[in-house]
């Protein structure tokens, strides 16, 4: 009971901090970084449904992210309204997720990963090579942000609040999803697929629906991304984006709600900081990957705690033996 109350207080405090962030941060640059964190957190949460709760590691989510972005951007360019463009983008990403799911869910584990990777590369190939449709490397400009209920989202603060609302809806939906019987059955297919099958669950269908839900929220993140950036190019669909999203999930710790958010914050902040000083973000990304996997396979947050404990124990041990040595000497 007590922990529940503490948890509630923590959540309320967190929401209050996020809701007042523009007032105590002030600087537009940092507000924009906060918007980036929130929008990538939506992507990481979406990917975590598959990676964390479903045990299915996808390296093709950049493809879905880009499909939503490109659909909306191209429709806006051709004179459609924001509502039509956004709804079509979400419909499109659901169709794409269904196709991805049908193909990739023929296997699990490594096979799943390889097929999603290949499918993501197809999307990249279309974005890069089909010049008459996507303008290739030049990308597509998104000249305006939507104005829901007549409120302009052009400024960094208003866009931050819009992103925050979407983010809160996303995390509430994820929390409900994870705690629902369906979420429990998804975790069941991750841990004991064969038993779930024997119990009469349709394992394939559960995974497929999880893929659709994940794809839908990836599409939402893709829409936020194009409105934030005002631009989309094939780079968004590249393997690197999928890898970054995966890094967010695993660095924060999988199969938790807060992990991917922490991971998104870590990756976005690092990316902004590292890019400000050096041009070698890719190398930093790769090295971080290698270090996390070699030393903290369980994720940055739990991993740091474990390493800190180990260091503390080692320190106390050497301290103790040092004292013992001094005592015997005297």
């Amino acid at each position, binding site marked *: 009971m007590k922990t529940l109350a503490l948890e509630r207080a923590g959540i309320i405090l967190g929401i209050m901090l996020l809701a007042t962030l523009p007032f105590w941060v002030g600087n537009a640059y940092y507000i924009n970084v906060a918007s980036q964190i929130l929008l990538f957190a939506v992507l990481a949460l979406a990917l975590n449904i598959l990676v964390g709760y479903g045990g299915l*590691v996808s390296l093709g989510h950049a493809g879905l992210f880009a499909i939503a972005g490109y659909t909306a951007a191209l429709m806006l360019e051709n004179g459609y309204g924001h509502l039509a463009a956004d709804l079509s983008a979400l419909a499109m990403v659901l169709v794409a997720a269904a196709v991805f799911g049908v193909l990739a869910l*023929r296997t699990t584990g490594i096979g799943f990963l*390889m097929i999603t990777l290949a499918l993501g590369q*197809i999307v990249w190939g279309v974005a890069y*090579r089909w010049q008459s449709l996507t303008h290739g490397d030049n990308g597509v400009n998104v000249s305006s942000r939507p104005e829901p209920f007549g409120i302009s989202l052009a400024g960094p603060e208003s866009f931050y609040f819009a992103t925050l609302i979407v983010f809160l809806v996303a995390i509430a939906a994820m929390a409900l999803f994870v705690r629902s019987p369906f979420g429990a059955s998804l975790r069941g297919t991750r841990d004991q697929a064969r038993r779930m099958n024997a119990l009469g669950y349709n394992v394939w269908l559960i995974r497929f629906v999880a893929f659709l839900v994940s794809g839908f929220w990836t599409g939402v993140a893709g829409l936020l991304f194009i409105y934030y950036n005002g631009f989309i190019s094939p780079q968004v669909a590249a393997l690197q984006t999928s890898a970054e999203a995966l890094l967010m999930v695993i660095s924060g710790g999988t199969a938790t709600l807060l992990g991917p958010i922490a991971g998104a914050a870590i990756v976005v902040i690092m990316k902004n900081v590292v890019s400000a000083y050096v041009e070698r973000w890719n*190398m930093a990304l*790769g090295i*971080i*990957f290698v270090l996390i*996997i070699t030393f903290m396979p369980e994720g940055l947050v739990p991993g740091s705690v474990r390493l800190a404990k180990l260091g503390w124990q080692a320190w106390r041990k050497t301290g103790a033996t040092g004292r013992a040595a001094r005592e015997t000497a005297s």
Partner: protein
Amino acid sequence: MNQWLILAVNSIALGGLLFLLSAGFSLIFGLMRIPNLMHGSFFMLGAYFGVSILANGYNFWLAALLSGAAMAVIGALVERFLLRRLAGQELAQVLLTLGLSFVVADACLMVWTGDPVQPPTPAHLAGALRVAGLFFPLYRVAVIVIAVVVAVALWLMVDWTRLGAMIRAGVDDAPIARVVGIRVSQLFTLIFALGAGIAAFGGVIGAPILSVYPGLDGEMLPLALIVVILGGTGSLLGALVGSFVIGLIYNFGQAMLPDLAYVILFLPMVLVLVLRPQGLFGKVVP
């Protein structure tokens, strides 16, 4: 007519290069269950090594062999000191190789800059071969011959030597192979080094055709992936057939539907996944 024939020769040459790339990928995946996401990096890094060795005035073939040998050593080190620690954790191995591929890509950009390099074809292969009144670019024919020679050598090794028997035993059932005294972990290092070496060799051989540029790794890796999904994992014959199929589709697609060439490339993979998920020559893995 002649134009189509040339296109066919080019396609088969590209298929040969793809085989050099994916033979190692397929063996590594078949034996070790590691989808080595840095295989494209081996190819690109090998090609860059070759370019640098050539720039120092060495012979082309020597450059290809030296680069292959250097990459075999690097591959062995990666396997022994990084991947070995993660034995059995497939996901961690995938992510590790993915991370390393980013490091390699960025390091190449730093050392060899972003400008594409295209080493000239070796002088004695610069001309054209004249057969029955038709001219074929000699170098492409040489690439096809090399790929076939490597394929036959690998096939002989896997099917007819003691080492090959040990590898096949490891692929079929690693724990039992260990029980009967085969040092599977040494085989792992060897296969990884061999795969990396052949990929690098292929990178140098392919450099006069494809040229070497940043992003080459990211373009080659999905090709290796679809070749292996198409042909079936761990099957050399599958890798060979898959390579030629993809080589043909890529070049003919490029010539006829340039906008969609990249998409068409993936269609056979989708078909195979739907109709025969284990690949054309793959065995069903329980």
